[in-house]
């Protein structure tokens, strides 16, 4: 059992700083998802943990032991790769056996372990096939199998599901989560898919441009984003982030002016904000309800576009230069051109300052 700890980890490729002063801790039994858009440094961070990339500065501890100068093979980690990285000329069984060779096990033991893993991941029927004879989902399971066959200190997954189609991805997500919860080890998963992160992780670290933006539980990342980037990155459809001015403050009720529309929002607690300064408000498309009259507590606008989302619809509402989106039930029978009034649900409005950081009173 071991923890993974990164302290002020930095990686520069020439002038480009891929990972910038990252500090993180993954406890035993914890699944940390590194989440972020492509090129944000999440894979580089993972590769540094694995020892496949050397850090420019900073320290990596695995099980409280500094592994900075340890070779990959001496770190006792297991990793599943994005493109599976199966040896093309070896069968599934041989691929699975490969990590075991270093441990000097007998043939019997190796065979037993292969069958064990094959059972967990339902690979029994395909153990004698070569990688090119496998379907994507099977390759992916073999890649996971190769990672879990040994008893390493920690597990690393690099975009494990990115190559699967949507259905298979959903299925594998559950399966991997199940396998991981049985393993009870510190695990790091790299992904750009928020759904993957939200479902599989016990802790999510959102990264952007080499920096960690927020580390929280999946629920907090969604409900309490620290800044506009996290707010916009997590959740589909994307959160509406609108620029506004504060025109009046009355303890917890703040009157904001978004373009030429004035709306009063009750934040429940008083926030330290200044009158007449400009801020951003963030409201998720699902946090609106339709009300009959345009009063001070709601936004009004004309429906410009309606996107079909199955059981729900995504309405694009326009008011002069201001557009925002709202998810509504199909039962409202909305049409393009209708004027609707949308009231943000209580306690689901986020306020951010000019530089994008959240203003919260806790």
């Amino acid at each position, binding site marked *: 059992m071991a923890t993974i700890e990164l302290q002020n980890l930095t990686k520069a490729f020439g002038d480009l700083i891929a990972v910038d002063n990252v500090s993180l801790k993954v406890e035993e039994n914890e699944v940390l998802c590194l989440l972020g858009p492509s090129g944000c440094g999440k894979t580089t961070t993972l590769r540094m943990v*694995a020892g496949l990339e050397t850090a420019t500065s900073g320290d990596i501890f695995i099980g409280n032991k500094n592994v900075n100068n340890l070779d*990959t093979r001496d770190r006792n980690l*297991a990793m599943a790769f994005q*493109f599976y*990285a199966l040896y093309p000329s070896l069968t599934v069984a041989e691929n699975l056996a*490969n990590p075991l060779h270093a441990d000097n096990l007998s043939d019997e033991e190796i065979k037993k372990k292969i069958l064990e893993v094959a059972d967990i991941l339902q690979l029994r029927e395909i153990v004698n096939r070569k990688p090119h004879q496998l379907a994507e989902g099977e390759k992916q399971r073999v890649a996971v199998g190769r990672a879990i066959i040994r008893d390493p200190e920690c597990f690393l997954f690099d975009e494990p599901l990115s190559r699967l189609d949507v259905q298979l991805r959903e299925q594998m997500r559950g399966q991997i989560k199940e396998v991981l919860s049985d393993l009870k080890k510190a695990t790091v998963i790299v992904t750009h898919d928020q759904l993957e992160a939200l479902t599989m992780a016990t802790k999510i670290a959102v990264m952007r441009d080499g920096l960690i933006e927020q580390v929280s539980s999946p629920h907090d990342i969604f409900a309490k984003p620290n800044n506009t980037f996290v707010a916009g990155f997590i959740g589909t459809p994307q959160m509406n982030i609108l620029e506004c001015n504060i025109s009046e403050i009355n303890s917890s009720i703040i009157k904001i002016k978004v373009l030429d529309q004035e709306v009063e929002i009750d934040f429940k607690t008083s926030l330290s904000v200044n009158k007449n300064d400009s801020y951003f408000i963030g409201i998720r498309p699902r946090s609106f309800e339709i009300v009959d009259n345009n009063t001070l507590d709601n936004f009004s606008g004309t429906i410009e576009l309606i996107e079909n989302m199955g059981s729900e619809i995504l309405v694009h509402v326009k008011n002069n230069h201001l557009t925002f989106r709202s998810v509504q039930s199909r039962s409202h029978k909305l049409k393009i051109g209708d004027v609707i009034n949308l009231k943000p649900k209580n306690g689901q409005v986020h306020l951010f300052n000019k530089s994008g950081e959240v203003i919260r009173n806790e």
Partner: protein
Amino acid sequence: MKKRAIGQAGWLWTSLASVVAFIYFFPVLFIILTAFRSRSDTLATPPKWFFTPTFDNFYHIFFRSMANSTEYVATGFHMYFFNSIYISGMSVLLALLIGTLAAYGFSRHPLRGNDTYMFIILTTRMLPPIIVIVPIFLIFRITGLAGTYTGIILMYTAFNLPFSIWMMKSFFDELNTEIEDASRMDGASERSVFFGVCIPQVKAGLAATSVFALILTWNEFLFSLLLTNKLTRTMPPAMARTIGGEINVDYGLLAAMICLFIIPIFLITYLLQNQLLRGVTFGTIKK
């Protein structure tokens, strides 16, 4: 009409292709036929297509009467044949060994200014070799390398290196580095990553590179002429000497020599053809 498979050419294109292939192959065919003709048949006009084949020409390669004598003496040609095989083989092996290691380095552990180094390596192939012949000749004379196997093998290795490095680098570049990382995770050392994971995946590249390098070395004339002596001479200058030394060119003898000359290359290319096909089409067919 019989249905043909999708992508299969019709009889018109097939026969057209055969005609073109025949035109290309004709000189080779003519040489092979000439090798089996007697001297009078060779010189006959119009060319005789039907004749009694003879092995005299092949015999004369190895045993021939020298000027003003009727006695048949050994020409030492078997030695030149051996020299060619030995020198080409060794230099190709060396170039492949050094080239593969260098290419792996350039591909996996790029230096600052990696592309510049690669370009400089390529520039050595931009000059016609004859430009450097004088300094090289002098260097060989001073160092005592002239006329030795070591000298000419080193020369040819240097010749083949740029090409080997470039070609092997492109093969290494094409590999999925994740597999190498995966084997590192599985506990492989850097040495076993190279020999156990990378090399097996570039077999086709090794085959293609070695055949190209071999053909280049096998056919090389100029440096062999100047840097070898009677004992280390390779086939091309030896052949030129045989033919050029006589007043009347013996075309039958020449053709027989050419036949022998192309056999090794032909065999190797034939043996490696499966690998070669994958090798020379790299980059055009994606996995």
